[in-house]
């Protein structure tokens, strides 16, 4: 690597990391938080004995998982304006990513809830708990432990998927890299650099996952 390339690498690191800090990371965090709430709701609907609730959730999940995220993003940002609904890039991205995470994480959470033995529900009822209290105090804490690894997967995928937001003009990591690349014509360097920053973020996330699992593991036999 010659001096000029190295200089370009260093000088473009600023805007790329800034894109990560102001675009990629907050976009992923906010979408994941909203998506998780949605997912919990969908999982409970899916498990509900009321047919119309579980079917509504089923259909939602099927549509979200059966269509590309890029298409969802374009429908919201480029499609909705033709119906008179114009949403800014950032909220559009959050909207699309949340909907997407909601669909995927719902199945993870549903499986985690089902993985808690039936005896736990019965013991909770036995000590007098209502369904809701049994769910929040006894079942969900145990389901949380089970769902950390798959939800971490979902989150890491989301972080990388936020690069799609560059296509609806959100200033994030990849869009910053693209702009520098277009200007300098150093495509290989800039895209590898973007990849490197994504990788570092995901490494950090993996270690957070490790810490989280360890914390939730304190009551599990090894």
């Amino acid at each position, binding site marked *: 690597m010659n001096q000029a390339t190295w200089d370009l690498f260093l000088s473009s690191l600023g805007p790329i990391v800034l894109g990560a800090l102001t675009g990629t990371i907050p976009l992923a965090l906010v979408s994941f938080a909203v998506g998780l709430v949605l997912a919990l709701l969908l999982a409970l609907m899916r498990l509900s004995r009321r047919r119309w609730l579980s079917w509504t959730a089923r259909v939602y999940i099927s549509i979200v998982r059966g269509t590309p995220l890029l298409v969802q993003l374009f429908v919201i940002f480029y499609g909705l304006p033709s119906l008179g609904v114009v949403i800014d890039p950032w909220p559009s991205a959050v909207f699309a990513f949340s909907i997407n995470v909601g669909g995927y994480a719902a199945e993870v959470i549903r499986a985690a809830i089902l993985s808690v033995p039936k005896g736990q529900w019965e013991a909770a*009822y036995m000590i007098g708990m209502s369904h809701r209290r049994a769910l929040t105090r006894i079942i969900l804490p145990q389901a949380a432990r089970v769902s950390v690894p798959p939800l971490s997967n979902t989150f890491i995928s989301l972080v990388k998927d936020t690069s799609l937001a560059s296509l609806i003009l959100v200033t994030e990591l990849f869009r910053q890299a693209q702009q520098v690349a277009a200007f300098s014509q150093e495509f290989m360097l800039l895209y590898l650099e973007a990849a490197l920053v994504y990788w570092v973020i995901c490494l950090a996330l993996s270690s957070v996952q490790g810490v989280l699992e360890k914390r939730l593991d304190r009551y599990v036999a090894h």
Partner: protein
Amino acid sequence: MSPTDRPEGTDSTAPGGAPAAEALLRVRGLQKSFGPNQVLQSIDLTVARGQVLALIGPSGSGKTTILRCLNGLELADGGTIDLAGELSVDFATAPTRNHLSALRDRSAMVFQHYNLFPHKTVLENVVEGPVIVQRRPKAEVEAEALALLERVGLTAKKDSYPFELSGGQQQRVGIVRALALRPQLLLFDEPTSSLDPELVGDVLRLIKELAVEGWSMVIVTHELEFAREVATEIAFVDGGRIVEHGDPKQVLRDPKQERTRQFLHRLLFPF
């Protein structure tokens, strides 16, 4: 804590000395089907205050289902359950959620597989119901829970998680968790069936002590020797009916029904 400490225990009769006429639990015509399979035909049974009823019988005979109906874990299709003369649930008319929770408020169950909450410590397992559901003062409940844990020799384990305990210890915590709810009726569902043989004794001894103290209980068990010693009455359940019931010594030594005789013979001489 003995049953007479309970606020709900309005009578001042000494434990075990309750007049035989005073029924704590009265079940009439209890029926339950799972799909086409009628597991309880028409169950009648009565437990007087301070008495211990042991339910014996082959697997699938319905004895566990009886217990689960008493705790509202299973919704019976027909029949009535009266508890303490103050609560009457008629299952022919669909009982409300309040009825079921009233049943649960007055009884507590000890499970075959303990079903302790794995994410809570021993002490947290015991105080969860009294503090969170019954809304009793935490300090008072904890003091009571610690006294109960000391009684079963588990004070040192109060901050341990269930997975760190042996089966016998877990089941003793299960019993303490039930006692801490201050129920009027204790329900045991094969409390020693998933224990290693060498750990069975501790748990049975504890249940026996509770019986002597005057707790009212219904126990589903395969331990005939234990039932003979602890129960005031034995009921032999088969095919969803109570085939025979009466004094434990009489039923076990000299059963009147042929079916009971067969069952006992098979238990006593398995091969």
